[in-house]
């Protein structure tokens, strides 16, 4: 079938493109190096020869087309495991799981990098395997080689339960926690390939990833057709699971299908059996459509009673998942940036409290030494209060005598007399305050006719953590959507099962 060929050739081309891209990214380190060191084609030629010069000039021109070459070049980088193309991050779901398992929060960009892979998996299924994964191109070639050699040799065809890949995923996570995330470089074929290419091209060394790649290739050659993709790769397994209800999938026309033909199942690189109307793991590579003699296979959106609702549900869950990290990590006050503060850098202003008496406006900032993670700091009760008193009548700052009292439930717990304002016209006070009190400060401005004013204030740890509630809400929303989706699916399945039972010719084993 024509579409099958288009898909197959397209998949080979895109995977080849990814492979070339990885090589180019590795070569880019040379370009960056020359750019940084010489920034001049003539100097490049003098020190590295005319070939280097022409390559350098070509890269320079093509990058310059988009903007500053150094910046543009540095907007791309990484490997299949986590990569940025034109500044857009892509994250491997396994990398994300591994980071979570190792007790490290996702960075926002890292989590956002999951959006495209998960969306693709939800819409098209395991398309990563056929259209992106550069390692699968190798396994594809090995499968062809097996086909060629099968005239003279016998090749076994071992089939293993899906448990193997799930086990590898869990075992890999345990290994990553026990050692480091780098262990995945040996367990994931595409990661091993990326490592091999980068080590070989950019660093001129042999990567240990090559060894693991050879093991995978050996398994493909000796154990079974596309053994790694079918039974070993944990990423393929997890993507297949995410996309198990993908919108687009392979669809069989049962009337045209020929009994006794098993071509589609034999050729499938992901061990899907279209004859059983299976669609789990389908990567839309088009191979089965090519071999099918009856032309009974096609790619169609899966028709359900309401295909739209499943998309909406999927989008809701994806949205909730993606917006999950931000409320939990939210701690910024008035958009203040971090300026590379340490995790517990004390002087992140937690809140600002205003009070007014007479012509004076008092603004109090609590530099809450509880910091971002109060439980981990050395002095958890440490609070620093900064006060500026503004005279609204003549737009000046009050710098005179002041009595500064901290009240807990109306009872003074600390008091200090200032003869005048300190550095930068501030009054500051530093005190230990537990987070259980009802605090306020009482100010007496002695140079303004003993004017008194009371400003209630709260410490950061007393405040409601709205982020947690929003996170909980997202979780509830996600659960409701997921449960609803599952119920709807079960209903559809039941209806179809009933329909099929009433028609014994179409019974499914």
């Amino acid at each position, binding site marked *: 079938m024509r579409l099958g060929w288009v898909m197959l050739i397209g998949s080979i081309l895109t995977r080849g493109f990814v492979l070339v891209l990885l090589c180019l990214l590795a070569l880019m380190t040379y370009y960056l190096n020359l750019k940084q060191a010489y920034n001049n084609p003539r100097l490049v030629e003098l020190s590295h020869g005319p070939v280097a010069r022409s390559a350098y000039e070509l890269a320079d021109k093509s990058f310059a087309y988009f903007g500053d070459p150094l910046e543009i070049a540095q907007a791309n980088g990484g490997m299949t495991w*986590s990569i940025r193309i034109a500044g857009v991050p892509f994250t491997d779901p396994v990398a994300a799981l591994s980071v979570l398992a190792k007790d490290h929060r996702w960075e926002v960009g890292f989590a956002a990098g999951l959006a495209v892979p998960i969306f693709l998996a939800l819409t098209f299924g395991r398309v990563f395997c056929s259209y992106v994964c550069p390692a699968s191109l190798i396994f594809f070639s090995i499968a062809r080689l097996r086909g060629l050699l099968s005239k003279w040799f016998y090749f076994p065809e071992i089939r293993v339960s899906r448990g193997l890949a799930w086990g590898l995923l869990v075992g890999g996570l345990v290994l990553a926690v026990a050692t480091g995330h780098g262990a995945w470089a040996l367990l994931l074929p595409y990661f091993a390939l990326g490592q091999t290419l980068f080590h070989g091209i950019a660093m001129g060394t042999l990567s240990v990833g090559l060894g693991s790649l050879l093991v995978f290739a050996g398994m493909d050659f000796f154990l079974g057709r596309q053994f790694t993709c079918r039974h070993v790769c944990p990423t393929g397994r997890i993507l297949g699971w995410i996309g198990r209800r993908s919108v687009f999938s392979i669809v069989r026309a049962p009337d045209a299908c020929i009994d006794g033909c098993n071509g589609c199942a034999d050729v499938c690189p992901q061990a899907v059996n279209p004859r059983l109307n299976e669609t789990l793991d389908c990567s839309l590579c088009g191979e089965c459509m090519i071999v099918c003699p009856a032309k009974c296979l096609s790619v169609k959106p899966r028709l359900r009673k309401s295909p739209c609702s499943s998309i909406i549900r999927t989008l809701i869950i994806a949205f909730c998942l993606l917006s999950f990290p931000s409320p939990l990590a939210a701690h910024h006050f008035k958009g203040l940036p971090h300026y590379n503060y340490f995790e517990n850098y004390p002087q992140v202003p937690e809140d600002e409290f205003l009070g007014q008496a007479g012509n004076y406006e008092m603004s109090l900032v609590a530099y809450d030494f509880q910091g971002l993670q109060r439980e981990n700091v050395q002095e958890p009760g440490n609070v620093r209060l900064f006060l500026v008193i503004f005279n609204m009548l003549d737009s000046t700052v009050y710098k005179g005598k002041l009595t500064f009292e901290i009240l807990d439930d109306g009872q003074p717990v600390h008091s200090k007399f200032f003869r005048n304002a300190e550095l930068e016209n501030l009054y500051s006070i530093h005190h230990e305050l537990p987070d259980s009190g009802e605090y306020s400060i009482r100010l007496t401005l002695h140079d303004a006719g003993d004017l008194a004013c009371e400003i209630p204030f709260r410490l950061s740890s007393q405040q409601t953590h709205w982020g947690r509630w929003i996170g909980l809400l997202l979780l509830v929303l996600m659960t409701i959507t997921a449960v609803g989706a599952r119920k709807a699916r079960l209903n559809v399945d039941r209806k179809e099962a009933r329909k099929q039972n009433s028609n014994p010719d179409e019974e499914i084993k």
Partner: protein
Amino acid sequence: MGGLIRKIDRGGFFRAFGVGFLAPLLLLLADRLPGTARLRRYLRPPGAKPEKDFLKACIGCGQCANVCPNKCISLAGLEKGLGELATPVITARAQACILCMACTQVCPTGALSRLEPTEDGRKAVRMGTAVVSEEVCYSFAGRTCGVCYRACPLPGQAMKLGLYETPKVNAEHCVGCGLCEQACVHMPQAIRVIPANQLEERRAS
């Protein structure tokens, strides 16, 4: 269509799961390989978190090594142990960090915290501290050298010169970029950067 729920063989599933679960753990044996004396003295890229947190966060994606215009970041192989496989490593004597901060801008997981290539950004780096071997150094033997001082990105602060250009490292300001170590003309080197993670270990012990 439909029939999406395939009957699975539960026993087979769990057996295969067990095999799959145990197989990666065999890789732990790689750590027991004899031979290569592991060079423990290497630097992490600028902005790297303390070693423990760094290894928690670093997924070995190689983006830092990819954007490094100085080609000083390399990715570790098995010689540093399985736990540090594919993590970025700087060997200062071979190629030291020029503190351009490109790697800190691209790290996807926050293993390297973001720094700007400004004076303040450079000062915030804590890769290690340079240590001079006075018994070896040319200048301390009266042969005026001062090469390390000229290589230092924070001259006068991280490193000061005495008589005959004898280097004196101010540990408080030294960021540990390793440019002095790379530049040192004495062979074997007379100045070396003790990585921050080893300083931590030393302080702990």
